[in-house]
């Protein structure tokens, strides 16, 4: 604990002297993205409701987009493909949401259910 806090203080002091960002680096950004993906995965696996499950997926994609932009800005030398990738992820998200909700509507009409467990008979 003590060692960790001294490291943090040293890094911050170096940052003050060097006048550039030390905390917003590729590694920390990727860690943040990993945290978002982890939470999203938990949500997507644990939620019973279809709509909440979708929220978990969206949170995972949120982390993916952050990672893509971080690579674009800090490791990809600003290649436009990095930005395009983010836009594609956004499009995937929009399509997933639109189709997902449309399916929920259609299934709800037929079955009056929006729980994933109640949909298991669809597998048969």
């Amino acid at each position, binding site marked *: 604990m003590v060692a960790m806090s001294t490291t943090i203080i040293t890094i911050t002091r170096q940052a003050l002297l060097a006048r550039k960002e030390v905390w917003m680096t590729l590694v920390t950004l990727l860690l943040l993205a990993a945290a*978002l993906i982890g939470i999203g*995965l938990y949500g*997507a696996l644990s939620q019973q409701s279809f709509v909440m499950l979708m929220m978990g997926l969206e949170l995972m994609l949120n982390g993916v987009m952050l990672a893509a932009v*971080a*690579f674009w800005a800090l490791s990809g030398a600003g290649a436009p493909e990095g930005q395009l990738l983010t836009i594609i992820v956004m499009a995937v998200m929009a399509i997933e949401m639109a189709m997902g909700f449309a399916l929920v509507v259609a299934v709800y009409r037929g079955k009056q259910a*929006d729980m994933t467990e109640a949909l298991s008979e669809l597998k048969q």
Partner: protein
Amino acid sequence: MNHGILVDIAFLLLAVLAVVSGWRVFRTDSMVRASFFLLLSFIAVGAIMLLLAAEYLGVAMFFMMGVEMMVMALFMVMFMMNPAGLNPMVMVHQHRISMGAGVTAFLVLGLMALLTRFPNRPLPAGLEPVASLGHEMLGGSMLIFESAAVVLLATMIGVVVLSSHRGRYGAANEGSLPPGLAPGGDPAGKPKEDQDGGHEHHHHHHH
């Protein structure tokens, strides 16, 4: 004024905001609140993108996600038992496995981020992110761009086919029953007779 340290402080605050609000999505009782927490998480990530000089993508996050989460909230109200949060609720299954999977994913991805050496190639000076994106779209990635149109069109048609309740063949909710007030009870608020007529068309069944 020290620019770097301000960016750092902003980044740390936004990172905490993104993670905490992302976690709160699955820990709040009200479904509408959950979707707005998710929006908050998106906004924090968008602001981090702004800090990373992705001016267009960061701002675009705000408006795309603003609309998407608004629609998400509407569907929460339509389909969830508890849009309000007046009574606490837990709606999880396989809680432990999911928790383990989430933590594992975080650890694996985090270790990958820590152990891999990524090339350090920052943005070149004088890069215009929006213009470079535009040139890429019209030039090299033209096919991606146009096929996005086709995919979006397919989505639009699919959405209309699946969800439009009117359609050309009469109301789509013909024959469907609202849920009972008590489990297994009579359907609630069922119209006594068909108001629309149109008996000749049958409701599509899902196989």
